[in-house]
Each structure stands twice: as structure tokens, then as C-alpha cells.
């Protein structure tokens, strides 16, 4: 199953946010979307599962055209972890994850034993089974993010979409979440698309990167070919130093303005 985005265009009113954006992800790969603020990353993610309708272009999951799928089917194909995970009503973590079964339920039916089994499995996979009875507004931000990942897994999707899943989290939780995503993609073949602001983490945990700037893709491919000094200068207007660490990881260090590269 190939996930393919073909020449997507999207505008809010007259201001164009995405212009002919294209990319392709093989099954079980992780694609990272990076780019400066306002470059259209979140909008792009929302276009993928038709929360926003692109004005032109196509999104395909295998042979399926997302623009023709009923909304419930889209929700069975793609699990989404949105940026904002605040909840103002005191649902328990279990109740939240159970909601992930909504796209699989018929009009008047409730969750079956099978649904519960899938939910338990998803919670165990995300490592939040011990939080089942806790209220979602009373657990930490990192735990809440993991609960929402469990909910996305309960949708039993072929694709996971995540908008800055590590935002506001400490490094321990950042690693926990990204290791989980890597494991889900490479072992369970759940294709993953995620948006990140952290270039180092994006490089380390993505098989491919897409660099957005001013509504278009200015570079795409393997992380070390996308995150070059030239590309970063063009997109962010910042000079950086790029090194390989002892363990062979890409390390990008922004330099102060006026400092010779």
C-alpha cells in the first residue's frame, strides 16, 4: 500500500497555503514534514484526511481516492493524533480510547467485547493500560499524548498522522513516543506521517523528510539530503552547522546571526 499525495492545493480564502504539494510514502515508512512556522505543515496534515478539503490535487491510500471515501472509511484508514489534546470534560483514559472504535460501529450499536479487546491491545501497545481508569484531564501531557496515540491505534488504521506529537514534552517522553512510532511503523507496517519542529528528532526518526517553505515542497528525500545548510538557509533564513555524531546521527546546530559559517 502506497500513500500518495499528488499536487495538492489549498487556500484559506485568497491566501494560498499549499501549492502543488506532492509526496509518496511506502508502507511501513515514516515521513516527517518539517518547515518554518506558517509554511503549511498543519494544513497539509489536515488535508490528508480531509478535515480540510484541498481545492485541487488528490490523496490516495493504495487504490482509494480519499476525496471519494465516506468520512467513516477515512477514519478506518487513518488514525490522527492532533496537536491540541486538551479535554474539558472528565472522561477516563479508557473512555477516550474507546472512542477510537467509533468509525467501526454501526448507527445504534455500542462497543462489543471484540472492540474492548482491540482497545486493550492499543492501550497496552502505547503503554497506557495502567491509566485506564484515570481522568484524561488529570494525567500529565506526555501520558495524555500516549492516550491519544492509543485512541488512534484503536481505529485500527493503516496510516498514522501526528501533528507535533512531542510538543511541550520532556526528552524522556519525546523519546518514548518516537520509539513507539518507529516500532509501529517498522514492525507493524503502520505508515506514519508526522509534523515536527525539531530538525534533529525529525532527521533521526523519519525515513524520509519533506521540507515545506512558502506553501511548496523545496526538498524531499532522505533526511541528510533534505537537511543541508543551503536548504535550511533558504527555508529558515538561518545558518547552521551540521555534524555527524559518533553514533552516526545527524546533528544540526543553529549559529547566532552574524557568526561566519
Amino acid at each position, binding site marked *: 500500500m502506497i500513500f500518495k499525495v499528488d499536487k495538492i492545493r489549498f487556500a484559506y480564502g485568497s491566501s494560498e497555503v499549499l501549492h502543488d504539494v506532492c509526496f509518496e510514502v511506502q508502507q511501513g515508512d515514516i515521513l516527517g514534514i518539517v518547515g518554518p512556522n506558517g509554511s503549511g505543515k498543519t494544513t497539509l496534515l*489536515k488535508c490528508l*484526511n480531509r*478535515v480540510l478539503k484541498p481545492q485541487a490535487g488528490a490523496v490516495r491510500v493504495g487504490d482509494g481516492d480519499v476525496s471519494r471515501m465516506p*468520512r*467513516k*472509511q*477515512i*477514519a*478506518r484508514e*487513518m*488514525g*490522527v493524533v*492532533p496537536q*491540541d489534546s486538551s*479535554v*474539558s*470534560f*472528565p*472522561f*477516563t483514559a*479508557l*473512555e*477516550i480510547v474507546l*472512542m*477510537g472504535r*467509533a*468509525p467501526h*460501529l454501526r448507527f*445504534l450499536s*455500542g462497543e462489543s467485547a471484540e472492540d*474492548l479487546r482491540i*482497545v*486493550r491491545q492499543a*492501550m497496552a501497545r502505547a503503554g497506557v*493500560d*495502567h*491509566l*485506564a*481508569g*484515570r481522568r484524561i*484531564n488529570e494525567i500529565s501531557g506526555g501520558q495524555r499524548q500516549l492516550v491519544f496515540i492509543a485512541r488512534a491505534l484503536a*481505529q485500527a488504521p493503516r496510516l498514522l498522522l501526528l501533528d507535533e506529537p512531542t510538543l511541550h514534552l520532556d526528552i524522556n517522553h519525546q523519546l518514548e513516543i518516537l520509539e513507539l512510532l518507529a516500532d509501529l511503523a517498522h514492525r507493524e507496517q503502520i505508515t506514519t506521517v508526522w509534523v515536527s519542529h525539531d530538525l534533529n528528532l525529525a532527521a533521526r526518526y523519519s525515513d524520509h523528510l519533506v521540507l515545506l517553505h512558502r506553501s511548496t515542497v523545496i526538498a524531499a528525500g532522505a533526511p541528510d539530503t533534505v537537511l543541508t545548510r543551503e536548504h535550511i538557509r533558504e527555508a529558515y533564513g538561518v545558518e547552521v552547522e551540521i555534524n555527524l555524531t559518533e553514533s552516526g546521527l545527524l546533528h544540526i546546530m543553529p549559529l547566532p546571526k552574524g557568526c561566519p559559517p
Partner: protein
Amino acid sequence: MAAAPQPEPTVLLRRRRRRTLVSIALLAVLLLVSIPWACTIGYVDIPLGGVVRALSRPLDSSLSRQDIIILDVRLPRVILAALVGGALALSGCTMQGLFKNPMASPYILGISSGAAFGAALATLLGGGLALGVFAIPLSAFLFSTIAVFTVYLIARRDGTTPVETLLLAGIAIGLFFSAAVSFLKYVADESDLRTIVFWLMGGLWASNWQSVAVVAAPIVITSIALTFLARRLNVMVLGEEHALNLGVNVERLKTVLLLFASLLASSAVCFVGIVGFVGLIVPHVMRLIVGPDHRVLLPCSALGGGLFLVWADTVARTIAAPTEVPVGIITGLLGSVFFVFLLRRRKQV
């Protein structure tokens, strides 16, 4: 932070199911007991035996004075209180879910102001309408519906109806109709003014079997329909983007929920006037007791709202006997005191 060991999800769910059944059954029994019980209380005290006798008397037997008080005065009033209270609480609960805001009430979209304008207009036009006793409720219902539709049309743009815009449009239309009511009050004569003011305070003194018959059908049917949408409402509470991500057709659901919640509120106020606080407080309290799952919360709010208004009205008609206090004053007093109590006790609601 060392988390205490948590029970298995299956156990949690079984517990939840049991709590659901117990809460609904308990509230239903309380309401069913309260209806005849509230009938015993009043200017003339009638023992429970008398109430039971009046209810179970053969159809062809002659009516005693006591039977008439029970069957023609108190029983329809208590039943109307249960229906109106239930409708307001259910409507409020739906609005709170829809607006993701535990502070929302059934009147948030201008229903109360619209209804008040309708009632005031019918009062001023009086006999000219030739609709008799139904003039005020009909006009109140009509204008509350007009108010909600206007709000909806104002907020709708490009096939979407953002709740923030709905909220603001509701405030605007509410202010408009309130100003119009003020104008009607200003030009009304003494007796019309008195009628309007009493209507605005909310009271069940005009209840009879006719009013019960008229409002029962929309309230019962809408309540049942809403309960079927509870699972979807749960997802909406997380936010519209979450709901879309989980495959819910958000705009359609929102329109249906608004329609049902407005129909409930309009049906509730049209005969009895603006009874405040029931639709705000009851869902709130129920959420503290049974949690936020609307599959439990909606039926519990409906039953709890009925229960609350039956007893608030019993207080309203007995506290200053032989006259009575508008029930809106009682619900407002009880509601606000209780609310402050909740605010102080709970860290978060």
C-alpha cells in the same frame, strides 16, 4: 509519580455499566415516587392514600372534592413540572456538550428572549388573536423558533456553523429580543405588564391536562432521539476536529443536535415561561455524579431535571400559601446557592 494499580478495563466497563443502570433506575424510581408524593402537598393537605384512591378510582364513580384537586389541579401540574424540568435539563446537557462548555444553558441561542418576546406580543395583542388560552404559548414557541433559526443562519457560512459564531450570534439575537421585550413592557398597560412580568419569572400556575398533552409528545420523542445520538455527542465534546478524525459527520450532527435541543427548550418554556437554572445546574450535578459519558448523562439529566422541578414547584406553590411564588425564583435561588457550593468544593468542573 507511582500510580496505584488500576483494575482491568473489563472490570472498569462492567462497573460503569452497573453504575449506569443503578443511576438511571434510582432516579426513575425517585421521580415516580415524587409525582404522587408532591400531589399530597399543597394548600389542602391530602394523605398519600387519598392520592392513590383518586388515581385508582373506577372511571364511572363520582368525584369528591379531593379527587378533583388531585386529578384536575395537582397531577397535571406535577406532570408538567416533570416534563418541563426534564426537557430543560436534557436541552442544557446537549448544549453543554455541543459547545464543549459546562457553562452553556438551553437559552444560549436566544430561545428564552425569543419566547419572552412572543409571549409579551401575544399578551399585548390579547383577544385580537382569537387563539384563546393558546395564544401566549403558541406565540412564545413561534418566536423562540424564529430566534434560534436566525442565530443558525447568521452563524452558517460555506456549509459550516462554527460554535463560536453560534454563541456570539446567540448573544446578539438574545439582546435584540430582550430590547424588544423591554419596549413592549414600556408600552403595556398595568395588567398586561403584570402578565408579562409573571411570565418572565416562570411559573406552572396555568398548567392543565391540555398543556401536558401538547408538550408531552415533542418532549418525549426528542428525548428518546437524543439518547440515540449520545455516543456521537461524546466524540463532539472533544472538539470538532477530533470528531472529524473519528469519522463523525460533524456539520450534520451539529444541526440535528441544535434542532433537538432547541425544540426541547422551546416546548418547555412556551407554557410555563422562563424557568432558569434547571438546564444549567442539573446536567452539571449529574456530570459530577455519573461522569461525562452522554449515554448515561443524558437520561440521568432528564430524570434529574424532572425531579428537581417537581420539588422546586412544590416549594413554589406552598412556601407562601395561599399565594404562590414564581417557580423561576425558587430554581434561581436554589440553583445559584448550589452552584456556589459546587464552585467552592470542586477544583475543576
